[in-house]
């Protein structure tokens, strides 16, 4: 039994969903999503027992490319995140009608497939293929099923597509160069390379461009807010919940260990960039008029902090970053789902048109509040664990980094509470607002429960990721 099974399930699921037809599509997709989750849990069990669940097979002879899937703790954690979020995301979409549902759900599973592949791939070219593959479904999801004016949407989505694709091409160039040097795309061969400082710098920058656009780190973030706003809720969740993490994961897995000298040399610059993202994103979020855009900028702020954590090159920074990635994945999916719930009832994303919802739907208000609190990293939520660890690692580098990065605690509270106040509180709204339905409530409760469970007891995840992160630190310090 090995990890390729998850990929197979998801791919087969995508086809099965397409064949199942519009009526059954959502249920079939949910079934395969849960199957993938179950499979990954079983695999996790095998992994924890010390079995080898990696998969390696020769694929192309010339150039030397292998179909290599390597599952270590880090990959498993990310796969689990994807596998857990996919069914939740599919489940959240149950309240909304989608035209041509079979294609829609098939694309979701296909995207999940590509992202799991990205997290597992241990061969540079294979990784690159999965990386680009994940872009295709989200492009169609955002373009076809998105909200708002079609022309505007097209502009935003095409910008996103070309922008990320262009960034990734630099990564491909870097991989080709590395292949010239190492004679293989396999990650362990790339780890063994001893490149000169200049080479490392160029490779680092090439990777950085690809990841900075995907994550996004300022100033490469301009695609984000518009796409988040225009994409359907499911697309936004996939993008913010999992796809952003692809970039962050790749920083840890590929960028830092392959070009450690450059990473060490210019560490401060990249940490500063991440922290600038924190402050900038938070401040920009303050004046957003659209709920989804506001959440997009809050996402920018959070991933900025995560990125800063990864570039500290310390075990705390990496661990905190991974924890925060997972936590942020859940919270952001929850928050975008909340915005979708409001959208279903009011058919608008404009904050000014909301307000006074709390009296009408107390359950929804409470769950929204909890998600807001989790997003501002209240202790006992999972986000706090991650944020604390990341900020701690930053304080080890320089206390000012921690102070500036820590402004997220203040500014985050400011914009989130301001948003909550404007959306939920105040005089009772004249428009009716039905409280959450069973399906909606279930999805939200699931997310909240996970956040609190891991907030109080993050040990399982910490234990899972720590050995592999320590290995990566070892690789980084090899020179």
């Amino acid at each position: 039994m090995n990890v390729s099974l998850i990929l197979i399930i998801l791919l087969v699921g995508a086809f099965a969903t397409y064949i199942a037809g519009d009526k059954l599509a959502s249920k079939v997709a949910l079934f395969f999503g849960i199957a993938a989750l179950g499979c990954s849990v079983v695999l996790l069990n095998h992994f924890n027992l010390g079995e080898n669940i990696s998969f390696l097979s020769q694929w192309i002879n010339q150039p030397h490319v292998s179909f290599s899937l390597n599952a270590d703790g880090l990959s498993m954690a990310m796969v689990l995140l994807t596998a857990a979020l996919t069914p939740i995301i599919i489940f959240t979409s149950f309240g909304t009608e989608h035209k041509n549902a079979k294609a829609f759900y098939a694309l979701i599973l296909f995207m999940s497939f590509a992202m799991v592949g990205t997290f597992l791939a241990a061969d540079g070219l294979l990784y690159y293929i999965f990386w680009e593959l994940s872009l295709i479904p989200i492009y169609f999801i955002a373009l076809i099923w998105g909200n708002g004016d079609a022309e505007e949407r097209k502009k935003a989505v095409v910008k996103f597509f070309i922008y990320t694709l262009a960034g990734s091409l630099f990564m491909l160039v870097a991989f080709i160069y590395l292949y010239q040097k190492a004679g293989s795309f396999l990650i362990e061969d790339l780890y063994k390379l001893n490149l000169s400082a200049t080479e490392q710098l160029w490779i680092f920058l090439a990777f950085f461009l690809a990841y900075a656009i995907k994550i996004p780190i300022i100033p490469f973030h301009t695609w984000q807010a518009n796409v988040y706003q225009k994409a359907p809720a499911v697309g936004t969740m996939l993008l913010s919940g999992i796809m952003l993490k692809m970039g962050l994961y790749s920083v840890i897995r590929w960028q830092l260990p392959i070009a450690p000298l450059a990473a060490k040399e210019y560490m401060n610059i990249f940490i500063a960039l991440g922290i600038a993202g924190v402050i900038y994103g938070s401040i920009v979020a303050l004046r957003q008029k659209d709920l989804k855009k506001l959440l997009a900028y809050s996402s920018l702020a959070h991933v900025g902090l995560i990125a800063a954590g990864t570039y500290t090159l310390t075990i705390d920074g990496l661990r905190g970053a991974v924890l925060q990635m997972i936590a942020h994945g859940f919270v952001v999916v929850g928050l975008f789902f909340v915005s979708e719930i409001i959208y279903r009832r009011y058919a608008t994303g404009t904050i000014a048109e909301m307000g006074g919802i709390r009296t009408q739907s107390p359950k929804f208000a409470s769950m929204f509040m909890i998600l807001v609190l989790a997003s501002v990293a209240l202790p006992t939520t999972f986000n706090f664990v991650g944020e604390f660890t990341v900020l701690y690692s930053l304080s080890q580098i320089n206390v000012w980094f921690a102070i500036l990065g820590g402004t997220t605690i203040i500014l985050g509270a400011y914009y989130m509470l301001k948003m909550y106040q404007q959306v939920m509180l105040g005089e009772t709204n004249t428009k009716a607002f039905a409280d959450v339905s069973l399906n909606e409530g279930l999805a939200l409760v699931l997310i909240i429960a996970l956040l609190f469970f891991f907030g109080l007891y993050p040990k399982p995840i910490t234990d899972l990721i720590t050995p592999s992160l320590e290995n990566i630190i070892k690789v980084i310090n090899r020179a």
Partner: protein
Amino acid sequence: MDTSLTLLLLLAPFIGFLFNVFFGKSIGKSASGILGTLTVATSFATSVYFFMQISQTHQAIQIQLFDWIQISNFKVDFGFLLDQLSILWLLFVTGIGSLIHLYSISYMHDDENMHKFFAYLNLFIFFMITLVIGSNLLVLFIGWEGVGLCSYLLIGFWHKNQDFNDAAKKAFIMNRIGDLGLLIGIFIIGSMFSTLDYATLKTAITGTTNLNITWISIAAFALFIGACGKSAQIPLYTWLPDAMAGPTPVSALIHAATMVTAGIFMITRLNYLFDLAPDVQNIIAIVGAVTSLVAATIALVQTDIKKVLAYSTVSQLGLMFLALGLGAYEVAVFHVITHAFFKACLFLGSGSVIHALHGEQDMRKMGGLKKVMGITFFTFLISSLAISGIPPFSGFFSKDEILMVAFEHNKVLWIIASLASLMTAFYMFRLLYLTFFNEFRGTAEQKSHLHESPSLITFPLIVLAILATIGGLISLPTNSWLNEYLAPLFAKASHEAHHFGTTEYALMAVAVLGGLIGIGIAYAKYIKQNIVPEEDSQITGFAKVLYNKYYVDEIYDAIFVQSINSLSKFFNQYVETTLSSLVFGLGKVTNELGFQGKKIQNGSIGRYLFAFVLGICAIITYLFLAQ
């Protein structure tokens, strides 16, 4: 046994919270209130048990539940520490908490969301207990943020009013500024000592000699900022008066008796750390003294009954910080306790008044309530005497000790503190006279409804008034039970008992005299001359500055809030668009290049031929001539 009891202590209010959240609406208002009260009372009973136990054994109880956060050089576990300090805090948190729960059953009975109110109150008690009994700084931080959250929820309890929501938001954000400071302090401590656990930390700090004092000072300062946020000291005090937007029991519980003392708790907890940073201690003392004076001056002219009490709280907290800064931790703790009694009593009394007047909070529209609200008046009087430092009430002892410590260390601080106490006496009696004496100034309709509050409200008042009277007994000047009880906590030998000489008696006399002068002025002004404060528009001169709280809110707004907002506007309007157009610009350049390139491919054979010839020339030159 200890573990399960601790969990009972901790989780009882939490269960009350969960129950009230999920079933509160269906079981009815009274039931949900009684349930809420009972859970807190359970905690109180457990606390009493622990108190008895520790009085005999003098042994702190340590409990480890499970690992929580893993950091490279240390791990933080979910553990609890029940020692003298935490049990003392538990006693009055849960004790006063139970009383206030009881009070709220009656007070909040007309509110449709009463079950929610009790849920939040229970949650608050839960977090406060977590804060107090946590065995390390991070568990303290859970409680620290948690009480801030409950404070937010309760201030904004009437969430239809956006002003209240603003106040709630402000409280949360200002607290978070402090929280950042606390976190930074935690980071520094963590990296210096590789532990956040109090016990290990104490051995690490007291056991080592060559510590890096600079970093310890920075850590202490950062922690102090955290304390400033939570305990409403300059410059982070402005949220507390606004927090009076919440229901009055909340003001009594959270914003007077318990949560705002968390900063003092934390500093007392880490006294060994602060002892090593004398510079920071000086800052604390100065900030405390200045806060007490500034808040007292503002309180002089306020007309909202709760605002007066709020500024009075800030002022008293300032006095406690003064004591902390002077290293007299047990004195600060003493004042925390007596203050909790009389201030809770005052707030609840004001709540009783407001309840009787159906929500009226302006003292200019009160008066003459002595006749109808006898019990409220009497308890209020006792508490006012206590806060003014008149013997033999509790406030006299605690305040006197602070003044004495201040006199020993620095005469200027003593003068400031004495001035603040004098003002305290004045504004408290101003409040008392305006509210309870003379004739009623409200509407006739209000007058007809005037009544003494029901026994559920008066009972807590009586209990608290008794405590406010006798609370001073726990630390008499010559024979202090409290000092002995707390002695194991402090690194330094406990503050030596004052051997009473003439100086001490003179100081005492001065303090009492000051209190009496304040009362006298108030009497002269508001009873003899029967002055009623002017309407808002008629206030002029310095009084206007005071009435507007030195315009601090406006200044903060202009400096911080507005600048962040305009920065946000700038980012949104210019930076975002610039960055966006840069990306689009890249696309446009490519597009333009394409268009230009298209012109080369214009189909004219003549030009192709030219290009052809020139190309051949170039190739030949490159191949044969360019060696």
